[in-house]
């Protein structure tokens, strides 16, 4: 049993879509393939007749500032994102998160598109993009479609991408005065190297108050969500002990964490979520202050 039979390199989006529809089934798009190939090899994913490699499509390898937006191509290796001066300046949470995906060698192959399309509820890169309120750009024969990143998921391991629809990249606004972000996570030394809990925060300062904030925890629920009620506690308020205490209580009331066998109980996750929230929001606040 081979992992794939036909491995095709596509050089443009139309070409990739055409190849997809002409290919012998089963067929999948692949960029880094660091998760997919392992899953096939280990029997947790059926083997593929055709894999269509998207790494040679120029626009999917692009990482750039286009007017007032940052664009990250879905096939950009995550190591490049981590070390990108643009990302460090405009979305350091994304740099921090992508710097923790897999290991150093894997990060030279793995892509942000794969990290998101895999639809795992605690994918570091994905969680950081949720906090950036990124827009996902997809391509199909009908042309380009833009949607909020949260619309990409329908269940754990299941993306909302249609057959033959390609995730092209992500975009979000450049960093403006008073804005900052941060990402952190807690691991367990034993067992699978997935975070017990991760957290990304983006916020905007206006004088002494947080005028806007976005918070994403993973893994929380079958598909990624924002911790909207916790955000509401911060929004329009000063960052002080009282706000933080209320936010922590709101985590207990509004964010869903579950027990995963041999990894963490829900109680431990709630405990960590509160501690991480305090740590990460303070870092994001300080960073926001650096750009006022």
């Amino acid at each position, binding site marked *: 049993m*081979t992992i*794939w039979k036909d491995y095709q390199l596509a050089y443009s989006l139309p070409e990739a879509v*055409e190849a997809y529809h002409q290919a012998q089934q089963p067929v999948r798009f692949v960029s880094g393939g660091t998760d997919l190939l392992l899953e096939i*090899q280990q029997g947790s994913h059926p083997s593929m007749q055709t894999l269509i490699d998207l790494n040679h499509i120029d626009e999917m390898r692009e990482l750039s500032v286009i007017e007032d937006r940052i664009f990250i191509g879905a096939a950009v290796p995550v190591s490049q994102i981590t070390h990108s001066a643009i990302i460090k300046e405009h979305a350091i949470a994304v740099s921090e998160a992508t710097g923790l995906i897999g290991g150093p060698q894997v990060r030279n192959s793995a892509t942000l598109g794969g990290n998101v399309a895999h639809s795992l509820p605690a994918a570091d890169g994905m969680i950081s993009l949720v906090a950036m309120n990124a827009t996902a750009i997809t391509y199909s024969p009908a042309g380009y479609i833009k949607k909020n990143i949260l619309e990409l998921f329908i269940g754990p391991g299941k993306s909302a991408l249609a057959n033959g629809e390609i995730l092209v990249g992500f975009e979000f606004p450049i960093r403006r005065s008073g804005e900052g972000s941060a990402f952190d996570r807690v691991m367990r030394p034993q067992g699978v190297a997935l975070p017990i809990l991760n957290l990304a925060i983006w916020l905007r300062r206006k004088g002494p108050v947080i005028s806007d904030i976005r918070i994403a925890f993973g893994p929380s629920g079958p598909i990624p969500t924002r911790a909207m009620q916790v955000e509401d506690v911060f929004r329009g308020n000063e960052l002080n002990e009282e706000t933080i205490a209320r936010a922590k209580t709101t985590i207990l009331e509004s964010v869903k964490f579950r027990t995963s066998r041999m990894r963490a109980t829900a109680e431990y996750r709630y405990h960590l979520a509160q501690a991480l929230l305090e740590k990460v929001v303070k870092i994001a606040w300080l960073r926001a202050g650096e750009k006022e």
Partner: protein
Amino acid sequence: MKEMKNLEITVNGKEYTLPIIEGEVLSDLLRERLRLTGTKIGCNESECGSCTVVIDGDPVLSCSYPAVKAHGKKITTIEGLAKNVGNNGNTYTVLHPLQDAFIEYGAVQCGFCIPGQIMTSYALLEKNSTPEVKDIQYALKDTLCRCAGYPSIIGAVQAASESIVTGKPVHPPIVPTSRISKRMVGQVSHRPDAIAKVTGQAIYSDDIQFEGMLHARVKRAMIPAGILKELDVSEALALSGVKAVLTAKDVLNAKTHGLFIKDWPVLIDIGEPIRYVGDALALVAADTREIASQALKLITFKFDPLPVVSSAVQAHDPETRKIHDTGNLLKHIQVNKGSVSEGFNDADVILEHTYYTNPNDHAFIEPECSIARLTDENKLEIFVGSQIPYSDREQVAAVLGLPEHQVRIIGQLIGGGFGGKEDIAGQIHAALLTMKTKKPVKLLFDRQESLIVHPKRHATQIDIKVGAKKDGQLTAVRTELHGDTGAYASLGEKVMTRATTHASGPYEVPHVDIDCYAMYTNNPPAGAFRGFGVMQSAFAVESMMDTLAERLQLDPIELRRKNALHVGSVTNTGQELRDSVGLLECIEKVEKALHEKAGPFPFKPVQDPEDPNTVRAWGFAVAYKNTGLGGGAPDKAGAEIELLPDGKFEVRSASAELGQGLPTVLQLIVAEELGQDTDHVQILLSDTDLTPDGGPTTASRQTYVTGNAVKFASRAMRDLLTSELAERYDISPEKIEFKEGLAQIDRQEIQLSTISQNLRKDGLIPKVAYTYWAPETKPLGQGGDMHVAFSFAAQAALVEVNTITGEVTVPEVIVANDVGFAINPLGLKGQVEGGIVMGIGHALVEDFVLEEGMVITDRLAKYRIPSIYYTPEITSFIVEHPSADGPYGAKGIGEICLIPTIPAITNAIYNAIGVRVDRLPVDQEKIVIELQQQKQLA
């Protein structure tokens, strides 16, 4: 869409145009098609980093990189780093500074991960020629080294960086050497196989290919308990490309194997019990590994399930189902000294507690691989990295019904062993398939099979009760151990015996009573693993010593000093220690360094002034570990030395090199005894046709036994040459001396090559053999000397606990090991560093999880081992209390270095936050729960 006809790639500067193969990954292209076997496959699941190559400047994992994806790219492998310089037959190889540095720093041990380490480091230095330690750790995070030469690797990368920047040769490291070193022994010396290992030229079993070789796979039960009712291999046999499918019906002679107790079935027959998930039901040989794998899926079987016995304590219950006809008790082991009831009566304080240790996997980076073939003379040859070649031969011959001389085990380089390559893995199965097909057969385990099949470290439950006087004098220790030896005996009895005899610690205790029950269960077998039972009991004893110190308000170091074994002490088995007991000096050395670093109160918790949620404290522990088999087992090793026609001495012994550095030890001894440098000594190991039996490479025994055999063989060689030369030149023997390639006879110098050739002309092959017998030992229960020697150690570990998340790190370790005499200081450094990191792994990282006999941690991604991030700063002291019979006083080091690390860490955690860890590994969530409970109580 460009239709791709061929794959065009550049590898190490050479352009290739190759046809495309379906589903091919880059590592297969490199290893199979281009025969660049320096790129290794450790896990094949993107975890270990051994397969790292550099593509267009970036390090990537070639095992999961589609070969087609490399189209148009430039690839550098380990074979491409060294440069050949010069021309016209006058070429020589110039190593890359990284390769030089890895050799200089002793970063090369078993060598299997080294190509990956060097390639990852190479990519780092190409981008950042002056990396800081944190950059090196970041880059090498997922390039695993189980010998855990991480400190040396970091040092080597820094030294290479300096060399690249300055253009000067690599700056050698500072290595603590023997205090009593001689001309050769006790001096820093590089491994004889180091250059091969850093250039990718070193050959391990899976790197070998033979013409017409078949690939084998084994159908495993994958259920822990049941009776095999039906087995259907017909579909597998009918699959195109399948050359043979064997079942128990094809096993015609011995039906079981085993190191001492032969209770492990070669294949499970219909009507016979399946006792663990790894039991073999059928063997397949096919043209390719893919076909063999496909055939496994076509083999079907039915079984009647049986209740699963999943722990030693459950197995001990008389109500529990019997796994073997003989019952569930492999062995009840007892140690008695004095009268414990009297001892507890004398005690002012008595403490009791139960400790639990989990199973561990060796996780050597090289998975098991055996290749069998028949020679033209119909001799069966097996190429395998084995810790006990002669035992392999005996077991293979018995199952195949061949006389032993018709079986030849040709030992290959071993990519890590740690005890996990002592039992039969694929040797017999490959041999059976070769006998059936008459073709060479390779049986390579994948990582999952390796994790499921081979014996693990024993899980134990240890109930311990300790009595002491107010001043700390121990009066009695009573211990009950339950050890889970799994489905088959393996070395379970020996391991648990060592756990038992070491279960009152390296202390003089007047009254000791220990019962140990080594129990069969439906878990994977448990057997030898570095530390060999002593790791488990030391965790219990050393935890109790700290608890006792706290209760008595004594300094934990003082408490240990008060009770420490010393010359003249009598151990719990009744052995009087007459020499070589360096424990007190180890304690002193560590204590002094500890106070210098941490002031007078190292065990008091210190809050980080910057971050109040980080608390640090030191912990302390000591240990001892036997050298050699002991217990009345005849412990011998053979060695042979020949003066070759080219003037070099060749040493031969079937002792195994697992990365620990035995060849260097043997080279140094011969060089010392025969007046040579190491370049004039070559080593041949582990070939049952060419090398005499060195016995098992286990029990920290090879430096001692094979070291002695080689030392005495060298002296015999000197005598032989001296008497021959004395006669030939008519000169008195005292006037003959040997030095680097020469014999000096009076004032005349003669090349050794000339001497060898002259002797051969006269029909005399200058060759001597020597069998060394270690001093006789007594079986347990008879008193007297149970072991020829013990090694001792003390360690202090600093832990840092995050009181919010419960996370624990170990930033610093201080260690002193009494090794008798440090023959090979560079190898010793590697063993000590590796032992400490493995100890940190056992304490904090490694958890082999079983549920009702099923292996949950069946991938390296689930059974994690320490990465380079776990490397502590290590301060190491060599303590040398020579043992009377060891070569130059040396005794074992391979295991002792791991043992005290674990309790030193858990004791430090207690000192930091008041949480007593009594179950391994440390669980950060439990730490948080206990801290919350403490808060509530307060």
